[in-house]
């Protein structure tokens, strides 16, 4: 059962279908959303664009849910999909090794060259010991995603999922369509 939804693009933000006003566009809009709606998690500034996007979308979902407690829990999973995996971070890391005369591979850049890091960032923020998973399909397909998340309730402990789509090809091109889903009882 879908409880809350968030859509973020470089131009628009919708929470449960209602537009969230902001002034900036593109990557600056993510920073503005952080300052206006979160503000207490400076690790945000170290994240790659994919993690920033997924992190903000999860925060807006959880603010919509209300009663945030940050108590450790195992019954909530984070399962996300996208098209470009970690391409923005991959490109940034490749730039640190491309030139043999200027070869300085960056560990801080390398760690984000895995798309599932965003699921870890959300789990760390909220102390979720539950399932975290990341999958790639080449086109957004709601039927595939919903079916996969319904399957994830076969886990004996999972009762709710932060799930959906979080994609970014570079710092200015991104799209999140994430939701909070609860197990049908």
């Amino acid at each position, binding site marked *: 059962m879908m409880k809350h939804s968030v859509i973020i693009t470089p131009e628009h933000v919708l929470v449960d279908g209602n537009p969230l006003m902001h002034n900036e566009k593109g990557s600056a809009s993510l920073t503005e959303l952080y300052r206006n709606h979160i503000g207490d998690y400076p690790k945000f500034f170290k994240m790659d664009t994919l993690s920033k996007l997924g992190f903000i979308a999860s925060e807006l979902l959880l603010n919509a849910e209300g009663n945030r407690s940050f108590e450790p829990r195992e019954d909530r999973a984070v399962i996300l999909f996208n098209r470009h995996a970690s391409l923005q971070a991959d490109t940034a890391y*490749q730039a640190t090794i491309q030139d043999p005369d200027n070869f300085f*591979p960056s560990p801080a850049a390398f760690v984000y060259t895995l798309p*599932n890091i965003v699921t870890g960032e959300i789990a760390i923020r909220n102390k979720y010991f539950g399932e975290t998973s990341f*999958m790639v*399909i080449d086109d957004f397909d709601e039927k595939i995603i919903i079916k996969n998340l319904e399957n994830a309730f076969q886990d004996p402990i999972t009762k709710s999922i932060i799930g959906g789509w979080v994609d970014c090809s570079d710092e200015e091109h991104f799209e999140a369509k994430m939701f909070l889903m609860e197990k049908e009882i």
Partner: protein
Amino acid sequence: MIVCVAHNIISPLGSNSAENYAAVKSGKSALRKYDGLWGLPEPFVASLLDRNAFTDKRYTIDEQIVIASISKALKQTDIDVKSSKVLFIISTTKGNVFLLDKNENVFPQERIRLGVMAREVTKHFGNPNEPIIVSNACISGVCAQIEAMRYLESGEYDYVVVCGVDVQSSFIVSGFQSFKALSPVECKPFDANRQGLNLGDAAATIIYTKKDKVNDNEWVACRGAIRNDANHISGPSRTGEGSFRALRIALGDLEPEKLAFINAHGTATPYNDEMESIAIERAGLAGVPVNSMKGYYGHTMGAAGVLETIISMQAVDDHNILGTRGFDTLGVTHPLVVSNQNRATEKRTFIKLLSGFGGCNAALLMAKGGLK
């Protein structure tokens, strides 16, 4: 029950599962030292396929070994792979990432997308379904099997083809070097003198289906779980939190005495092996033999969970607990049962355990003939 109907491994140690198992059993390893390869300034030790052996200009090396591995697994069956009741799940961390190198221009840039790479594979086999790519860091290979189990349980598909793959490149090796995670010598899982991991190339395939009844020789994927440490994106938990919780679910109500072994991640980094010892102890499994395959293959990333499950199934078939190559003296806090020698067993179940960046961990319980 979710049953394994066919499998294959393509690695530097062989191009089918039996060759791979025979090589591992006899203590062979493909780990070699490479100095100056791919223009990398630092030498490294890795288990690599001979790049010159891949001559098909239509496909990248990753795609070629995936296609070869799946073909060999399918040949053991009479599955109609063109049917919409067959799903492909590919497990990979970096796929064709080498295409980001500006000097690589043989293949279209779009092949860097994992979904495009996977579609090349399904197109090759004429399978009509959209392939799912699991990219969940180093635990991808077990996650992909758990996904397969769920898709089969839900009845949507009759067969799921799971293939794990990663092929090393300057991108991956330099990244792990920048992390100071690579061992300058052949890796020593769980050893007091372990200095880090080695990387490796491989593709490995398991085909699963659902059956109501199984015979004594069939392998059943019983239950698995994925859990997060909620601690750090690149360092394992000091309490083995996610690994412990995944283990607890995989074990369920099975008595630990029924396990032949736990095939651990055992990367031979100081932190990973220590974390696993904590998790295994917390799960009440410190008395169960533990082994690691990394001394034979290095860390094959997206392939590891599939490859190591296949090697472990064959070991149980052979009544064997494989030795941990590179291990000599226990160097973790909790007293795990690790040996560098093969040992006999008559037990019929094992747990495959993995952990990875992003704080993720996965465990999978496999039982020959199912749980009685």
